[in-house]
């Protein structure tokens, strides 16, 4: 079971649950399991979050594998994708 930690306001959408154990095998699978457990999270998962798997941050990347002993953090996304976003959050330069 991967250890999954929600950082920041996302925990508010789970009624305060900030840490879960989930048998996720990929980011896509993880999102599916999270959405099942906490439907309020669903709209925020497909766009708008980054996923850190064992320290490495991934964004808009559904097929990244997750190992049973992985430590996974769900973070605010570090930049908006696809440009549906006018002011992407962390885009300087």
């Amino acid at each position: 079971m991967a250890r999954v930690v929600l950082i920041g306001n996302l925990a508010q959408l789970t009624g305060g649950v900030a840490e879960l154990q989930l048998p996720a095998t990929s980011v896509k699978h993880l999102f599916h399991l999270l959405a099942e457990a906490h439907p309020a999270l669903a709209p925020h998962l497909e766009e708008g979050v980054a996923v850190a798997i064992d320290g490495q941050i991934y964004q808009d990347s559904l097929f990244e594998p997750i190992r049973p002993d992985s430590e996974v953090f769900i973070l605010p996304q570090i930049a908006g994708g696809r440009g549906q976003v006018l002011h992407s959050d962390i885009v300087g330069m």
Partner: protein
Amino acid sequence: MAETNGQTNGTHYVGTRTIRPDGVDKVTGRARFGADYNLPGQLFGRVLRSPHPHARILSIDTSRAEALPGVKAVVTRADFADQPSEFIPAGEMMMNYKDVVRNVMAREKALYEGHAVAAVAATSVAIARKALRLIEVNYEVLPHVIDVVEAMRPDAPLLHDDLFTAGVEPKPDKPSNIAKRLEIKVGDVEAGFKKADVIVEREFKTAPVHQGYIEPHAALASVSEDGSVELWTTTQGHFIVRAHCARLCGLDMGKIRVTATEIGGGFGGKTVVYLEPVAIMLSKKAKRPVKMVMSREEVFKASGPTSGATVRVKMGATRDGKFTAGFAELKYQAGAFQGSPVQPGAMCAYAPYDIENVHVIGYDVVSNRPKVAAYRAPGAPISEFAVESVVDEIAKKLGIDPVQLRMMNAAREGTKAAYGPKFGPIGLEETLNSIKKSEHWNTPLRKWQGRGVASGFWFNIGGETTVSLTLNEDGTVSLMAGTPDIGGLRAALASVAADELGVPVEKVRPIIGDTGSLGFNFLTGGSRSAFSGSMAIVEAAKQIKTELIARACKLWEAKPEQVEWKDGAVRPLGALAEKVKPMTVADFAKISGKLGGPIGGVGRINAQGAGPSFGTHLVDLEVDPETGRTTILRYTVAQDAGRALHPAYVEGQFQGGAVQGIGWALNEEYIYGEDGRLQNAGFLDYRMPVASDVPRIDTVLVEVPNPRHPYGVRGVGETPIVPPLAAIANAMENATGIRFTELPMSPPKVLKALQERGLNTRD
């Protein structure tokens, strides 16, 4: 066939100081920037802007302007379809096209001085300006609020009656100017403070500052009768501009072709659309090309600065210097619409340190100012200024050398970042060490001189990137990237392509393609363009090498294991080497037709694995105690670049970021009058550093390779603006004994502080 990339291919251009391919055009005046484009029959567009910081727009009468000979089109809020209140996530900061369309053209209300209210296209600039004076706008002036703390008061003038603070439970029943409250919690700060022997708590204030690019926003749009659009604009991301214009103007993306002109600086400020949708709507009405260029005053009043903020920081440490807890409360100005960089500010605040218990609360607050736009490491300089100032105070209280204290608490590989996950290999310690070892650090100072140090962190990003490599018949290589080149990107990418294909770098011609020539590219920002672009080139080159090896096998009737790619050629192995000669890229190019047609590769990636970049800055300064004037005497930047593709342009990023930080720390600020109007909307009184204000900026290139990048590259562009604010405040404290907590540290503030302590004399 062996996996090949730069490392195994024997790199020789990467890491060297090649001449940038776009250089000659830029030193001869040939390079075409936003305002340098013109089309036959073009009209000139001008924008009418609100003189009021906050006013209801009761009516707009454009009839007299439209009647003026030479006026071909006028647009107002009526020409832009309203957008539904649909939140699109960008990080946890939600963006909303309902706001975007209102920022491009005011609807119910003008929310800041300079807010666009109408626009005109005419046959001459003079006529367009005259027409603006003929537009009658009937305003109901409303009370305004500029300061972020005042805007948070329950009785403050309300900007949006449908804005309810997000992130608080239960959902508020009254609207407010607080768009959002966010929180980051790691460990237990209360327990952490209990373990502390020393606790320092301070409140800081920073002023909004503008990105200050020298090239004003400019756009040239041509809309034809069939609704297809050509747009030339100075932007950090033409694919992003296309997406926004499609949405705001109700057009199909496929019908919009956006060309990114050479860009005269952006620093985050050109990740946003202002003129583009307006030029398109004017051109659509007039059926003629429309050119729009902002004046410098418009740039200051109507394009994004970054947030001013109020920040409270509380840190605890043990007697022997271990940080036990860090708390921060961040109140960031968003401008007239929600969306300040408070989220990244919160995540970065304690990122440089290995600290178990962190609690950061952030507020995103609207007020009657221009909507903030990204600016170099958005949000981070503000929160890290506060934390790095307090770190220095702790060092002083404990009598520990400030570099030593940072070293003792520095984040390193495996450290759990203050925003959650563990760090991979990072270079903070190396930057601290190189500063400590520097001759600069060990030079004595005189009275009224001070020395300060501070570290800084930025995430960096990857993201969607498409780059194409095409072999021309003569063996030269055309490289097309889709991220605008602001500071030497083409030079860096050309070196990578040359090394990947084993061709001379001058045989590689890099260009920035338009939105019709390449697949999607996210914008140049987040320090991603060299990182992601070079990754995509490795991928594109791999396709070419695979194809060449396949063709060689066909031609030589050989098996893959009988050939290898080495140093820019497919080489026969063993017995085969007796029969055939190695073939270079150029050899294949000459006869590509005979071997199956044109040869090329396209790297289409969503780059992951961006490595964070840490930096440490060291500054010496001198204060004139009688006038409060500060002179920067000496400056050294040490930063981890992972691997510098082009060292000179990496150093340039370090130096430019440091000097922008010097301006932020000492003189730059938005100054408002009681009337809510900006008083210094020009270079004269905005006071960016000039050449005589700054010394040499020495650089130390630290290279701790990023294991997730084929060349070890980390983004470098943003981190350099993070440390200067605190480094300078720490040096001021060292010079005067006074802890300055408000930016800018301009002479009147400094002299006042010195006078209050009777220090304002030379002796």
